[in-house]
């Protein structure tokens, strides 16, 4: 009899834990999904077919993305703790701004052509403590075929909001990719030089891409 009640208690507890974790699983996706849906609808919006409105479209996309991604954490993690603390707080902020700008330049300009894409939510994993999640999706469309994209999100304890801090496309994590780059860059230049370089690139000065200069030129 005692065993039976213990069994029931365990069962109840198990069910409670299950529903708790699925609740936060939903939470992460519920936070991500509206942003992605909005991005897709902005991209599909026929009024932006006119390229004179590209600027306006870019601004709207920018807003959604800034709201969905934690660029500071993104930059810091891409740098890694050992390198990050070599930057003064002021340099750190400049770095985050430049990094954000580079990302925006790079993606918002390329993303315009994807006007008819769908995102399928394949699966999600939530960490045991419920504050980190990975959401696996696939972008499906005429232009892209099927591209697997995984979003890494964490839950900000204070605000309770879920924010993206990494993006993995075709198995390539942006965070790790930038860590590799920053590691190489830090071998060659001082924090200040790196910040200035990033800022130049963000302003599009160093980066004379795409037609005029090869990629290799600017790293050397």
């Amino acid at each position, binding site marked *: 009899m005692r065993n039976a009640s213990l069994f029931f208690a365990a069962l109840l507890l198990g069910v409670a834990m299950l529903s708790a974790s699925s609740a936060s699983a939903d939470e992460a996706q519920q936070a991500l999904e509206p942003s992605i849906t909005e991005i897709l609808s902005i991209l599909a919006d026929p009024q932006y077919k006119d390229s004179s409105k590209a600027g306006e479209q870019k601004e709207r996309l920018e807003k959604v993305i800034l709201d969905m991604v934690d660029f500071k954490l993104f930059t*810091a993690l891409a740098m890694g703790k050992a390198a990050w603390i070599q930057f003064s707080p002021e340099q750190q902020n400049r770095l985050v701004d430049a990094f954000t700008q580079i990302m925006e330049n790079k993606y918002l300009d390329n993303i315009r052509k994807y006007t008819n894409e769908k995102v399928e939510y394949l699966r999600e994993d939530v960490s045991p403590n419920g504050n980190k999640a990975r959401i696996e999706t696939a972008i499906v469309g005429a232009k892209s075929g099927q591209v697997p994209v995984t979003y890494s999100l964490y839950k900000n304890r204070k605000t309770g909001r879920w924010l993206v801090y990494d993006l993995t496309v075709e198995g*390539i994590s942006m965070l790790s*990719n930038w*860590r590799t780059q920053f590691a190489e*860059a830090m071998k060659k230049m001082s924090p200040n030089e790196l910040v200035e370089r990033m800022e130049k690139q963000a302003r599009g000065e160093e980066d004379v*891409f795409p037609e005029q200069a*090869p990629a290799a030129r600017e790293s050397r």
Partner: protein
Amino acid sequence: MFRYAMSFLGLALALALALCPNAARASGPENQAALAAANEIPGSSQALGQEGSDSSTFGAEEPNVEDDSQQPIADDVWGEFEGDVKVENTPDPLQPWNEAMFEFNDYLYYYALKPAAQAWKFVVPEKPRRWVSNFFNNLASPVRFASCLLQGKFFEAGVVFSRFVGNTAFGLGGLADVTSDLKPTRKISTTDEDFGQTLGIWGFSNGPYIVWPVIGPSTIRDSVGYAGDSFLDLSWYLEVELWQNILIKTGQTINDTSLRLGEYEALTEGAVDPYAAVRDAYMKFRAKQLSE
């Protein structure tokens, strides 16, 4: 036959014109570390658990990274997230050579391959370009067939074989990929296999990263795999002169590139270190392929 085999090897190394963007998507497998990196994504909840190495310390006063952007990143945040970044420890003893070759390929891409692909794209609509791509893809079926067999993926090998027969017979010799919509009778893993991945499955590690002129990024193991694959690619066995075959291969590369313009740019544009960006991307992509 022997002549073709020899021309093959030489050509495979020198003239496949499979530049970085292609190669980054194209061939080879991974060592344990890289495999672990790929596992980062599938993120079984177990893996996630291990990442937050000290999830217990993630407590009441988590510093708010997002709200007060002036706050420094606190220690427990580092603890929480550092494990998420899988740093690639690709051995790169050939770095000076590799960087020079990377630069060479980069010039080749921007000054030869890309303009050619853009011109081709301008002249020919997308559909015919897909047909050309399908045709060569179909001719490369033996590569996937053999690799599936060697990896013990017998059902997948059967799928590759029947697609080859189907596309060749009913798709105008492989121009149309008529079988791509047909679902196999049971769920299969990917048939996108090559000899480099096979070697990886067999337990060979990557060896150093190496960038070949023209061919692009690879590793020692993937290079061996690439040479092996060349022997099974039927497009090298067409009854034409060697120089004609080279021309055909160049054309194939231009055609394939025309369908992929922008991928290489997306990877290197805005990069602080394009060489490192491509190396990381290549290793990660191969790790993912190997895990599938």
